[in-house]
């Protein structure tokens, strides 16, 4: 019925023929419509769990490696095959040398991260919250930050001897700076409008810090923690290859002397898994502590 009301287009063209603006538009061809798939019903994605999908990449890599070893492209003195490595790993666990080395290494990292986190956070709070603290702390930290911390190992050995202390100190140092930088930036990045709102609500100075500044700095702190843990493993590897008589690094140095690529790879895998575990811990923390954040979570 709407068709009968519409005047035929050419009739209008006849009336206003002199003016181009009154010419009827060419009727557009009807657009092609396409259905938008709903993500909740894309079945093949929903059925395979996420962790399994994430595992497929590494598994393919492993398969390629095994094939290369089996076909003789990759010889054992360059890199042992995954099968050999699995066997060696089992043996190392069975005789207890791997687990005890892991315990020692974990302890070093935990202690170093703890100390570094405390030092980094305290310094960041000092310079983030107080002008005087900033003047006092920030310039020195920024200066020290540019020194590659690994270069300090010889100095630390002279200062702390060859026991646990220099190793923990190196990790502490490595952890401190990324944490400091990110917590400091987080504090200084807190939205000034929210600070004003807090003040207008009658929050005290400490109330502002507790309810506005620190929660606002938490995303930065989490980023810092993640960086720190990455650096911590790196620092551990360096620290343990110098003058160590225990730990995963020591195991690796020993294996190098006997050309045991299989043991070296086992140790590397252990490092990787420890790193993954640390990342998992941070991710879990982030999920719990930052669930208020309106962020893009990926598709």
């Amino acid at each position: 019925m709407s068709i009968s009301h519409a005047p035929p287009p050419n009739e209008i063209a006849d009336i206003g023929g002199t003016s181009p603006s009154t010419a009827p538009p060419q009727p557009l061809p009807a657009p092609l419509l396409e259905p938008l798939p709903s993500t909740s019903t894309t079945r093949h994605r929903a059925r395979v769990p996420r962790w399994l999908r994430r595992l497929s990449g590494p598994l393919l890599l492993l398969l390629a490696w095994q094939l290369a070893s089996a076909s003789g492209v990759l010889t054992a003195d360059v890199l042992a095959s995954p099968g050999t490595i699995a066997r060696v790993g089992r043996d190392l666990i069975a005789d207890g040398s791997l687990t005890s080395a892991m315990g020692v290494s974990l302890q070093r990292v935990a202690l170093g991260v703890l100390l570094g986190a405390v030092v980094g956070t305290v310094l960041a709070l000092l310079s983030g919250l107080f002008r005087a603290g900033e003047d006092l702390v920030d310039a020195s930290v920024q200066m020290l930050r540019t020194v590659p911390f690994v270069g300090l190992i010889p100095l630390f050995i002279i200062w702390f001897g060859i026991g646990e202390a220099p190793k923990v100190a190196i990790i502490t140092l490595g952890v401190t700076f990324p944490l400091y930088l990110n917590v400091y930036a987080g504090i200084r990045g807190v939205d000034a409008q929210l600070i004003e709102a807090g003040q207008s609500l009658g929050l005290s100075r400490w109330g502002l810090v507790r309810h506005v500044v620190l929660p606002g700095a938490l995303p930065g702190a989490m980023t810092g923690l993640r960086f720190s843990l990455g650096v911590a493993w790196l620092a551990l590897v360096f620290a343990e290859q110098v003058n160590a008589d225990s730990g995963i690094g020591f195991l690796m140095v020993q294996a190098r002397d006997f050309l045991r690529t299989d043991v070296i790879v086992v140790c590397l895998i252990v490092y990787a898994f420890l790193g993954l575990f640390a990342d998992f811990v941070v991710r879990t923390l982030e999920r719990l502590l930052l669930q208020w954040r309106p962020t893009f979570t990926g598709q």
Partner: protein
Amino acid sequence: MATDVHRAVSPDRAGQEEPAAVRVQGLSRTFDGRRVVDGLELTVRSGEFVALLGRSGCGKSTLLKILTGLDREIEGAVLVPRRKATAFQAPRLMPWKKVWRNVLLGLPGKPERAVAERALAEVGLDHRVDAWPKTLSGGEAQRASLARALVREPDLLLLDEPFGALDALTRIKAQRLVGELWQQRGCAVLLVTHDVEEAVLLADRVLVMDDGVIAHETEIDLPRPRDIADPGFAELRTHLLDHLGVEAPTPAPAPAHAHASASASA
């Protein structure tokens, strides 16, 4: 009927002290040598609803910030009640606190959740008590911000363009809500707005700020609830727009002509 009172702007009309919620004398605020507020005088009676109009950048927010106590770099005397609350143009909810915790933030002692629930029910948000701020719509967030201000039981409520970012429908609802809450609470309200209609709809008195002072004031004594269609309403709006430097389109008998001239000048 509407009555315009064009009187000399003075804080004390009869000389006697009536109970006031705001008393400002000779207030000045300078930014980089530029006097944004320049010898401003202002009195708001207790329980009075005052709307503050003015072109953008004339210093309305600056004045409100001073009254809130956020800006202390001032000259002059400012008297405000101890119990005051502010709602800003953006809701400024702490994103890391659930809505009800936002409402209770800064209250003395350890207030119970029920206190927040009551305040949120007052603004019609009782169903979002446990929500994260990121999940609120613009109107809901603004109402939560209003609840956060009201839960302090203020003697003076300062509102800085609280409806500016809302869509037209939500804004009408929010304006009504503020009018009703004011009538229930009886607190003084200073509403900064750029919307002349909003000012005439809600306020007892409308001030126009210009050149760092209150340049003009108009009493609105239309009966409440007010109706935009009221001829007195239109008259007041035209009058205020005039003072804001906006030429109102003359209600000419031939509206088609008025439209044509307007589009020609555009």
